[in-house]
């Protein structure tokens, strides 16, 4: 640790001079008081989340389509790869309709509030021990608080539309989000309680420390005090689906009952802001779940699989550092397979070339990542090693979040929708008592163990 402190001392005071080691910072830019890099991180995360939302849009449509024995978007670009862009362009140039009876100012600001709440959360999401904008010591509290502000946007949208369907949707969503926040908070508290079960009895609210505590205790909290951690995790996983208004808890926008719920009157750009906020919020709550229970950025078995695989070379760290590159190579291989299987007809020539180029880009990224990992390992340069480690941290974090994103799609394809009273029953009569019980039992077991 002292080595890292000295590294901090050498760079913290001089913003911008350590630009070569973006992912190699020893602490987050917020802690290092480095506004320039904090700003750059913010931009990177903003762009990354936006790209993730666009990718999620495509993946959801494709995966949902394949669940439902259809193909999904196939026309815009090879396998519909450009469909999200086409959609975005369509939404941007669409006429922006504000109903005559609507409250203009509130109608205008509601999607912005939703979007702001969804994106502000990412300030404290730790993609790695130093790959976060800032490490607040109330990180998890901040995340829960800010993500709960999203409901304000929904309520205001419902009210400002001055129409019955949005109003009912808004009332539903506010009741739903407030109810599920309780169970969600209690599940989070039981995970925070687990962070304090160490030698000095100090717990953490900081997102980074929560992950590091999991490493120190040598167990992801989902497996801690089995099955207590698992139950708390499942409660959170259910509550977070309700919190983001996704199926089977998508009552606020239940299309068969309320046409489109709170955003019935919205169109074009404003509507797309709501969608952006919804997907960003999905990624954000999944990040909370990953951070609290699934070891955040930690690779599998960080304490057990260390040292050399064989007597000398290579070491496990190196093996795991290869994963990001290999994943991209694998994605590239899938794209190549798609290219080969494209119809051999002149009509599809441009699409085939495009898909091939996409495959080449994916493979290029894969080769680049592999090169960084191998080069860092070969040269032994500290900055390179740190950069490689940072990439690998981000990779594991994103991979875990991606699994949650897939689950969201899976839920949507499988389940019918709950009715409002049943939703409340599940929240208050099932999740809340169980989460309280888990919290109490966790505390008791913690006292007995320590």
């Amino acid at each position: 640790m002292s080595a890292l402190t000295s590294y901090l001392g050498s760079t913290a005071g001089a913003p911008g001079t350590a630009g070569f080691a973006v992912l190699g910072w020893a602490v987050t830019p917020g802690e290092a008081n480095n506004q320039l890099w904090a700003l750059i991180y913010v931009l990177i995360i903003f762009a990354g989340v936006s790209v993730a939302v666009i990718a999620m849009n495509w993946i959801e449509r494709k995966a949902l389509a394949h669940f439902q024995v259809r193909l999904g978007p196939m026309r815009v670009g090879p396998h519909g790869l450009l469909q999200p862009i086409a959609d975005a362009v369509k939404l941007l140039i669409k006429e922006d309709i504000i109903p005559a009876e609507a409250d203009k100012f509130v109608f205008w600001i509601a999607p912005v509030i939703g979007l702001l709440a969804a994106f502000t959360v990412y300030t404290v999401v730790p993609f790695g021990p130093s790959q976060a904008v800032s490490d607040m010591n109330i990180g998890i509290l901040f995340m829960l608080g800010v993500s709960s502000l999203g409901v304000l946007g929904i309520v205001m949208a419902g009210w400002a539309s001055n129409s019955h369907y949005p109003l009912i949707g808004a009332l539903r969503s506010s009741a739903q989000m407030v109810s599920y926040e309780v169970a969600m908070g209690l599940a989070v508290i039981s995970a925070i309680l687990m962070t304090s079960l160490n030698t000095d009895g100090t717990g953490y609210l900081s997102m980074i420390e929560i992950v590091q505590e999991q490493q120190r205790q040598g167990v992801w909290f989902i497996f801690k005090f089995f099955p207590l951690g698992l139950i708390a995790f499942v409660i959170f996983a259910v509550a977070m689906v309700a919190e983001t208004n996704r199926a089977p808890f998508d009552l606020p926008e239940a299309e068969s009952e309320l046409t489109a719920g709170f955003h019935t009157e919205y169109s074009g750009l404003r509507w797309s802001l709501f969608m952006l906020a919804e997907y960003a919020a999905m990624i954000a709550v999944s990040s909370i779940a990953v951070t609290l229970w699934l070891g955040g950025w930690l690779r599998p078995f960080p304490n057990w699989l260390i040292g050399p695989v064989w007597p000398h070379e290579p070491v496990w760290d190196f093996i795991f550092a290869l994963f990001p590159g290999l994943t991209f190579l694998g994605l590239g291989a899938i794209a190549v397979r798609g290219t080969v299987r494209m119809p051999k007809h002149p009509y599809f020539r441009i699409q085939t070339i495009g898909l091939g180029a996409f495959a080449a880009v994916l493979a290029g990224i894969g080769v680049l990542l592999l090169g960084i990992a191998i080069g860092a390992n070969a040269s032994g340069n500290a900055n390179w090693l740190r950069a490689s480690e940072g990439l690998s941290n981000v990779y594991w974090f994103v991979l875990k979040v991606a699994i949650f994103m897939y689950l969201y799609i899976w839920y949507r394809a499988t389940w019918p929708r709950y009715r409002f009273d049943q939703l409340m029953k599940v929240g208050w009569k099932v999740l809340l008592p169980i989460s309280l019980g888990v919290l109490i039992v966790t505390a008791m077991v913690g006292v007995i163990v320590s």
Partner: protein
Amino acid sequence: MSPFAAQGMTPVATPFFFYMLSGLAIIGGLLVITRRNAVYSALALIVTLLAVSGLYLMLYAPFVAGVQIIVYAGGIMVLFLFVIMLVNLERTVKERQFNRMWPVGLLAACALLALFLSVYEKGKGLFERSAYLNENFNTQNTQTIGVMLYGEAHRIGPYTFAFEIASLLLLVAILGAVIMAKKRI
């Protein structure tokens, strides 16, 4: 604790952020009491609450700031908006907004302000030290607050009893609110 926390998290551009946040808070407060439509008032109040929570962060009270966001902005304000929608009367917007004795109220409030200002003027020397100079201040104070509220091992904290009473108060408030608001119990 993070080994870097001690040297990290120094507030930056303090005066700028202070004036910005306090300006937002006061403008928000002004809007709260002047808007015709209660929804606008609620929006303004949310701005004020968030600005005040920013001020808490500048005063090294991160836990209070977090509680402020969660409880006030996420909870109480949603409740307010909910009720405003429930009792949404177009009529109230068109009616007289201030009661008949508003000059008296305004006068009384101004007198109160004058009182405050005179006290501050008198105690200038006492208050005029920098808000950030106290070196003994524990900037990572969430745990300390927890100890004060809940106590440590084998020892209850100074506020444990008060905390329990507060939880009782909340329970009573829940029951009271449900009984008041429900049509048939």
